[in-house]
């Protein structure tokens, strides 16, 4: 996204902002989904992210930050607030009914390989739910392929070295949870 478009956005050009929405909607949904948010909540947060970005467009300074970093910082704050808001409710619901949150229903009559993959994804979803919201965010950003470590560090407000070490620890934790789940099956 070049500076001319960003300047047009800052001046209130809606068609230019529409281009920004089109450019970042996919990675934003990818990020929110990997944070373990349901489709409905991801839609709500993605929409709110773009609306807030529009409202604060004049404050964006292309000299100081990349547009992607700025957008994901807004999305991260909204997503973590949402996760913290519902954390207690989700925790209680899972403990009482053994449910795994809002994982989308599996399609019926799947072939064996597809079913296996679907079950693995369900376990991944459950394992993600067990992570701390800050860890989920870091992991989701790292697997976007949109952002470099330096950008992730800026969004998470931590040093690059901490991004790498935390990422290693989170992946180990995730792997351990998934493997433990497999052993129980």
């Amino acid at each position, binding site marked *: 996204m070049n500076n001319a478009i960003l300047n047009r956005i800052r001046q209130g050009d*809606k068609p230019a*902002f*529409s281009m920004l*929405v*089109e450019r970042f*909607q*996919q990675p934003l*949904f*990818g990020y*929110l*989904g*990997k944070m*373990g*948010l*349901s*489709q409905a909540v*991801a*839609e709500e947060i*993605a*929409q709110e992210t*773009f*609306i807030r970005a*529009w*409202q604060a467009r*004049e*404050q964006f300074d292309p000299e100081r930050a990349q547009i992607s970093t700025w957008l994901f910082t807004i999305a991260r704050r909204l997503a973590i607030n949402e996760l913290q808001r519902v954390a207690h409710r989700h925790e209680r619901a899972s403990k009482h009914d053994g449910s795994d949150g809002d*994982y*989308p229903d599996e399609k019926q009559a799947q072939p064996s390989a597809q079913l*296996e993959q679907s079950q*693995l*994804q369900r376990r*991944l*979803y459950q394992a993600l739910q067990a992570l701390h919201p800050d860890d989920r965010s870091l*992991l989701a950003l790292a*697997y976007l*392929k949109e952002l470099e470590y330096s950008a992730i560090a800026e969004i998470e407000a931590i040093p690059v070295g901490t991004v790498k070490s935390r990422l290693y620890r989170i*992946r180990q934790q*995730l*792997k351990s949870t*998934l*493997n433990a789940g*497999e*052993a129980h*099956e």
Partner: protein
Amino acid sequence: MNKKNQTTITDDELDTLLQQTSFAQVPDRFEQHVMMKIDALPETHSSQPTWWQWLALVGGGIPALMQIAGLVFSAWNIANAG
């Protein structure tokens, strides 16, 4: 990974799984929906004051300050005269 109780998920498999799995999809016409919401927002004025706003502030502020000064001077004058 493919056979139960036999293999565990490796780092590479975890990477692939995390890269390929998407739990949220962009809904149809999402972009249009966002732009409709933005169109429906009340018009916001620029947070950066323009030159005429400064002019209005100074133009209104100076007479106001002079009126206050006049009032104080009158009060002081009356007090001294009494």
